[in-house]
């Protein structure tokens, strides 16, 4: 059995390439190691490049709530793909608006000088409109930004010419922007003063248990 596997591996190595053979090796090894479908579910089954899972979160339907349950806040997921901007530069803006209410976020982005701010503002306005039209949100100002982050898009590669006939591969960067709006007022950020932090520190020192002492 082993010999056959090895010969298979050898043929695979010559055919596909080294990495492909390792993957094949892993595939044959994993079910042997673990226990069946539970362990296999940890593998990525859908390729992450074309699956738009963020948009699919908008299609989830919850069962009707009973009258005594607290009202479930509406969540709206929106994104824009392949923005011609750097993901690292967009991250700063995304981090800035996390936790803000929609109106505040839109106002901040409107008066920000970065290129990504204009795009993000459009995305937020679109999401707000979608919320009111499709997701049964009553007041469009009653939303806050729960999650907001940027992701890497598919880059185009070009040649950057250097001296002495050397060249480098230049990436034309693209990024995605994801935002999740939730109905309700923005959650209060707990403000901890330095005095509070100091008190906590002193308390942690006092509550130490000393072992092996007299």
């Amino acid at each position, binding site marked *: 059995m082993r010999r056959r596997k090895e010969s298979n591996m050898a043929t695979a190595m010559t055919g596909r390439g080294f990495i492909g053979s390792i993957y094949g090796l892993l595939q044959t090894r994993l079910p042997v190691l673990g226990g069946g479908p539970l362990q296999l579910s940890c593998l990525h089954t859908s390729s992450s490049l074309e699956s738009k899972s963020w948009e699919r979160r908008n299609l989830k339907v919850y069962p009707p709530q009973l009258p005594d349950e607290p009202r*479930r806040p*509406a969540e709206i997921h929106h994104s824009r793909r392949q923005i011609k901007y750097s993901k690292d530069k967009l991250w700063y803006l995304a981090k800035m608006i996390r936790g803000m209410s929609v109106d505040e976020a839109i106002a901040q982005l409107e008066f920000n000088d970065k290129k990504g701010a204009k795009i993000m503002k459009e995305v937020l306005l679109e999401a707000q409109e979608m919320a009111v039209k499709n997701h049964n949100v*009553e007041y469009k100002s009653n939303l806050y930004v729960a999650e907001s982050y940027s992701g890497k898009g598919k880059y185009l590669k070009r040649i950057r010419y250097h001296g002495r006939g050397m060249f480098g*591969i230049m990436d034309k960067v693209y990024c995605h922007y994801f935002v999740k709006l939730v109905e309700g007022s923005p959650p209060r950020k707990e403000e901890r003063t330095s005095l509070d932090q100091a008190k906590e520190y002193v308390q942690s020192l006092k509550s130490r248990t000393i072992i092996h002492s007299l």
Partner: protein
Amino acid sequence: MAMPMRRTLLTLHRATQSNLKSAEASLDVLHPIPLLLPVRTKKRYFIPPAVGLKGKSEENPEAKARAAGIVFRQQYLERPINIACTAGIFDPYIPPEGDARLSTLSKEGLKQRTEQIRQSAASQLAIRKVKEHDSEFKTKDFAERAQEIFIEAHNALTQFNKEKLHSLVTERCYPEMTRGNRYKTIRWRFVESLEPPRVVHARCPDMVTKGNLYGQVTVRMHSKQTLAIYDRFGRLMLGSEEHSKDVLEYLVIERHLINPYGRWRLHGKIVPSWAPAKDPIIKTVIIPGPELKPGQEFDALNYEVPKPAAVQWKLGFLLFEKGFWLLRHWKQQVSLRMNKLPCPEANEAASFSTEYHTSLE
């Protein structure tokens, strides 16, 4: 790339030679250098694609093909379409005013009850035509069948069983019933029928060609139903599951008579103009205010929200924003008083302070 290499080689050569023949080296004589150009042997795994230069897309492949003598046969872009239902309700039934509002014991009520379908000659003709094609058609039991189709169609809508729904409901009616409902939960229940359903109207229009007959029969039914619609998050949007409502409906059932496999399917509903307003939705909606000229001020106290004209809806099903399968038109249901200016910026500010009251007609 070659030039700098040659230069370095030259200096190397000279450096080696200088020990041996200093005289020749100092005279700066260019000796022919052996061709030892090093070639890059390490393979580059990825070379980015050359971006097309500007003068690239000038060749016309079509002209080239024609010059080469390749002939393509003419492509007929034909697609057969099967029409199994009409586009609307032809010659719709106009329900008499005050239908089901008067008790049967009063004089007017008795008059209404005795108004049978025999009155209308066109309907009689239509029924005769229908009986020609469909021998089993009987006015008396057709009404019960229509009610059964109605109940089954609505049950299929709650389960969102597409195939069953398509078999019970025509293609024209299907989008009206289901638009916007895909991500909503609908709970509908037919409690009981208050009056036996009866056929009130019939027409046999033909589409496109003369012989292509469709039969449309209007059935009046008075029943009790409960409807509750929940949005994507399980929150109640409209109606309630406990309270049932008395509903008077005029259903239009259609069948493609010539087609031997045609079935009687629900085609639409007729909503009379005198129908009472429905219950409002559990949501505040902003109605756009009047258009103001610059400098003009909005007088909130004297402003009356314009009410839509009472029109008979022969399209039937109600498209309430996202489209609900409901009885009467929704525009009458919410009336809203704006406390602030109706301009768009103030609308956002006013969205929290709008009063919401139900319309009472």
